[in-house]
């Protein structure tokens, strides 16, 4: 069966983009990816758009993006699994190539989150949980991860300082990423002085909403080898779910969906966690990155706190994690995030990450979570 290669990479600047519509944001990423691929637009067989519809005024987003990209009358469709919508788009594009239906597919993750006012955002925030039994008590997205953090601290002794270490690392690298929302390093004092959101979280434990887009162009092996001297391969593709309700999660110190998706991705790629040199993981909150280290096997369950405190996830450590700034500093335009992760890891494997380049990066991983873990996608990327 054909391998699926990444032949084009594009990424817009994440941030408050009051200068552009969502389709204009999508086009920025698409144009860069097409220039990178160096192919004619007519060779694109289909597009898959990853986005979460409720943030946009425009309904049925795929159609307006497809038109703006100039890809009509080729097929397009939208994938939605909350914050993992971008990885779902990549997965369905990959499936369509694996199935022999398409040769070249453009995947665009895009999201404009600042179209909504604060009141609309707060109303949406009240419905992130399971609405029948949980939302009636005023649960929030940070609130759920805060409860994971409290439990993680209780079971393993994870500390407030270790949460802070995640934020400091990701802002340190975000400062080097010209595509990031926040490009400034932060201090422990700055984190400590920030306002409470949901204990133990303060503002600097939480990623920020943003506008933005990213694009990857995928191709079947023969096409990838024809147009690219060194394609990066989607070698392991894992995907799993966990219950929506925390009332039906036996363990609250990790995401069972992430463990399952990682195991699938490693098995398909024929590697283990030890082979991974660089990773982008879903750090929507600081505890989420610590749990991700454990769930994908970079360290044992419960050891994620000391792992970051010992700088094992900085460049030069055991495995470099979120050296593009992560969701935390790069910003989190939810539909774009999964595609942005694949973009970053493919750049790393090509050796094109500039001052953030991880030496000898030959195997990389992405870990993209939807909601509070009800969806997780893990990809293993390799080069020949």
């Amino acid at each position: 069966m054909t391998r699926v290669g990444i032949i084009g990479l594009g990424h817009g600047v994440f941030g408050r983009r009051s200068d552009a519509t969502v389709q204009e944001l999508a086009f920025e990423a698409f144009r860069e990816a097409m220039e990178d691929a160096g192919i004619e637009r007519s060779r694109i067989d289909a597009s898959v758009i990853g986005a979460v519809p409720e943030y946009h005024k425009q309904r049925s987003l795929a159609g307006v993006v497809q038109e703006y990209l100039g890809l009509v009358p080729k097929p397009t469709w939208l994938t939605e699994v909350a914050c993992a919508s971008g990885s779902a788009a990549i997965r369905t594009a990959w499936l369509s190539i694996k199935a022999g239906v398409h040769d070249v597919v453009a995947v665009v993750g895009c999201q404009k989150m600042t179209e909504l006012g604060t009141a609309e955002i707060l109303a949406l925030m009240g419905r992130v949980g399971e609405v029948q039994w949980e939302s009636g008590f005023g649960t929030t997205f940070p609130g759920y991860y805060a409860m994971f953090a409290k439990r993680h601290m209780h079971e393993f002794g994870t500390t407030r300082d270790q949460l802070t270490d995640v934020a400091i690392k990701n802002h340190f690298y975000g400062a080097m990423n010209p595509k990031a929302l926040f490009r400034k390093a932060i201090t422990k004092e700055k984190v400590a002085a920030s306002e409470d959101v949901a204990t133990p979280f303060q503002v600097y434990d939480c990623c920020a909403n943003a506008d933005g887009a990213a694009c990857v162009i995928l191709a079947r092996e023969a096409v990838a080898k024809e147009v690219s001297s060194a394609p990066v391969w989607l070698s392991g593709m894992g995907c799993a779910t966990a219950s929506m309700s925390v009332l039906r999660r036996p363990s609250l110190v990790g995401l069972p969906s992430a463990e399952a998706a990682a195991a699938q991705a490693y098995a398909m790629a024929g590697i283990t966690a030890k082979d991974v040199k660089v990773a982008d993981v879903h750090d929507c909150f600081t505890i989420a990155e610590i749990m991700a280290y454990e769930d994908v096997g970079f360290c044992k369950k419960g050891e994620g706190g000391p792992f970051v405190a010992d700088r094992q996830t900085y460049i030069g450590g055991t495995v470099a994690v979120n050296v593009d700034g992560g969701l935390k500093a790069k910003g989190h335009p939810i539909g774009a995030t999964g595609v942005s992760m694949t973009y970053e890891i493919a750049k790393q494997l090509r050796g094109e990450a500039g001052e953030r380049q991880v030496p000898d990066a030959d195997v990389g991983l992405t870990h993209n979570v939807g909601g509070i873990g009800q969806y997780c996608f893990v990809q293993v990327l390799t080069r020949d």
Partner: protein
Amino acid sequence: MFKWFGRVNYTPYTKVSDFARHLKNGRLMGSRCRHCGATSFPPKADCDACMSGDFEFVEVSGAGTLVTFTKIVAAPTGFEDVAPYNIGVLDLADGGRALAWLGETVPEADIAIGMELQLVPRILEELEEIKVYYTLERPGTTWSTAAADA
């Protein structure tokens, strides 16, 4: 009557709507599958184990252990005026779990994972419309069931 459940209710219609009526009468009800006997709290009309849709309500004690908690400071729409508030997840002794506010019998400084708590039916009394919910309280906290199943 499920529109009664919760300070804000997003799901007025459900096959387990009688849960809210029982709660108003001071009773905590889970579900039991009439086909295979599997139980659930919160109640669920359709059985996880055998897929049967034939269920009955069964009363649960509400006793349990606190699994985790947080104090929500940044509140969503509908909760601005009560923020900050503490919410917790309770592992019920009879099986299942509940997510609820920590009540006034549990001072904030005393909240600790692993503590024994009691899920207690409540009615929001400051409102004209009926709003029922439950809180996590010290074991031994009593509540009225005087309304009976009227």
